[in-house]
């Protein structure tokens, strides 16, 4: 029993220090197609003001917030390293107002569709790395930590989102499939000039907290107050703006 206690404690500490996220090594978009620009994996979570984990229902008017940490930067952010021990690349989606969950029984499956409108996003570069990880995620409310630790530092990119559509389905087998999808566009931030205001896709999976004591396949238990664990990405805009330069800089490219 003692050895298992030590193992659990050490694993918790290791998890915060040893998560290896990838810089631009995994960015190989198909030629002539926009690829992933920014991805998030282990460390991203959602919470709402009026959501029931027991019924999986978001009430009309509920305010959704998503916070997380970047795991991969690709072009035009490939120079940024999400594994930098001195920099915390975090993000927030907020201002998202629920239109209310629509439940649709389909055969023996149940589909839950929720649309959120009016939202935006901001991505930050902060120091030190103080945002929680999956291993240290606190229950909510966590004043001073959530969302504070995800919105400190310099905003490198911010923008708007059109309707965020979240769909999860309790399938006929009892397991849950899930997805989220929205269009985004940039409006500001220190790196805005490299992205511009073109529209592209923000999408991924939306792993909900299980509605009961059991953990069906496709659900993600989380500390109290959280509603889901998203995993997803921002795609590169279709047209990345040209960068201003000087004649001298251009000449150096051809020496």
């Amino acid at each position, binding site marked *: 029993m003692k050895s298992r206690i030590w193992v659990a*404690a050490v694993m918790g500490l290791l*998890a915060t220090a040893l998560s290896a996220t990838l810089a631009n090594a995994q960015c190989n*978009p198909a030629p002539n197609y926009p690829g992933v620009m920014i991805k998030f994996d282990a460390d991203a979570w959602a919470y709402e003001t009026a959501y029931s984990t027991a019924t999986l229902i978001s009430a009309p008017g509920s305010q959704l917030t998503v916070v997380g940490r970047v795991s991969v930067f690709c072009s035009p952010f490939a120079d940024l390293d999400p594994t930098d021990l001195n920099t915390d690349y975090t993000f927030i989606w907020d201002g998202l107002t629920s239109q209310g969950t629509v439940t649709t029984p389909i055969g023996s499956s149940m589909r839950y569709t929720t649309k959120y409108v009016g939202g935006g996003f901001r991505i930050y570069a902060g120091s030190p790395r103080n945002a929680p990880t999956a291993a240290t995620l606190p229950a909510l409310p966590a004043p001073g930590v959530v969302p504070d630790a995800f919105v400190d530092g310099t905003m490198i990119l911010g923008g708007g989102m059109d309707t965020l559509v979240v769909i999860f389905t309790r399938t006929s087998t009892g397991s849950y499939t899930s997805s989220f999808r929205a269009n985004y566009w940039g409006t500001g931030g220190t790196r805005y000039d490299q992205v511009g205001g073109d529209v592209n896709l923000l999408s991924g999976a939306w792993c909900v907290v299980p509605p009961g004591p059991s953990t069906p396949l496709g659900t993600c238990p989380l500390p109290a107050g959280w509603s889901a664990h998203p995993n997803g990405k921002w795609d590169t805009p279709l047209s990345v703006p040209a960068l201003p330069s000087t004649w001298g800089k251009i000449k150096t490219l051809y020496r």
Partner: protein
Amino acid sequence: MKRAALLLLLALSVIAVPAFADSDVFLLGFAGYDYESPNPNPGPDPGNYLNIGEGYKALGFVTDFGAYLAPYVNITANEYTYYYYDLTVQNYAYYPEFGYLEVGFANPGRGRFYEDSHATGTPAWYGVYPPNATAPSTFIDGTVFLGGHIEYLVLSYDFGANQGGFTGNIHFDEGSLLSQIPLAQRDGWTLSGLAGRPNPAIPDGYDHQISGECRIPGPVPAAHRTWGALKALYR
């Protein structure tokens, strides 16, 4: 002596551990695309998509490693890819009035994760209309660092919203890093969101863009105990 040991045990039992240490944990994340192969009825439209007997493939790049694997990967020296295959549609249900498709796959399918040296290997390229000259071949060269059989995979898709997802069990049973996952934690599972057309990121011949992860059972948790509860263990 016995009292000292019990006091020590009490102190150890209240060491702070993650609140959900007994929950499953993140193993790795991925992004990529999926496609049908074999695909005797081509086309992503509801009537032609993932009919019974058709094959489902997914491939792409590993984008993140959790604590169990992170110390043993070198993201500077290597490219990390994944490939899900041997997934044949066994159950099919399409509800046109809801625009909803749900398919199940015959057990087992297979999932493999690869490590390929940048210096000596071949960069992975999607190309178009897979299988092609580079997909899946450039995604499945290198060393299998982890692999397993996939069971009870279910995929659902909403044609009205152009999005869906899949989830299934994956039991890890091979790979150079298999030993880094304790035996009791190898019954993992996988999930992914699917984003379909209109989607400018999807190369011709692929069906959906994928973003997902694999998770495994967590370690045995520490449990908080009172002094009275501890004493009761030794009566």
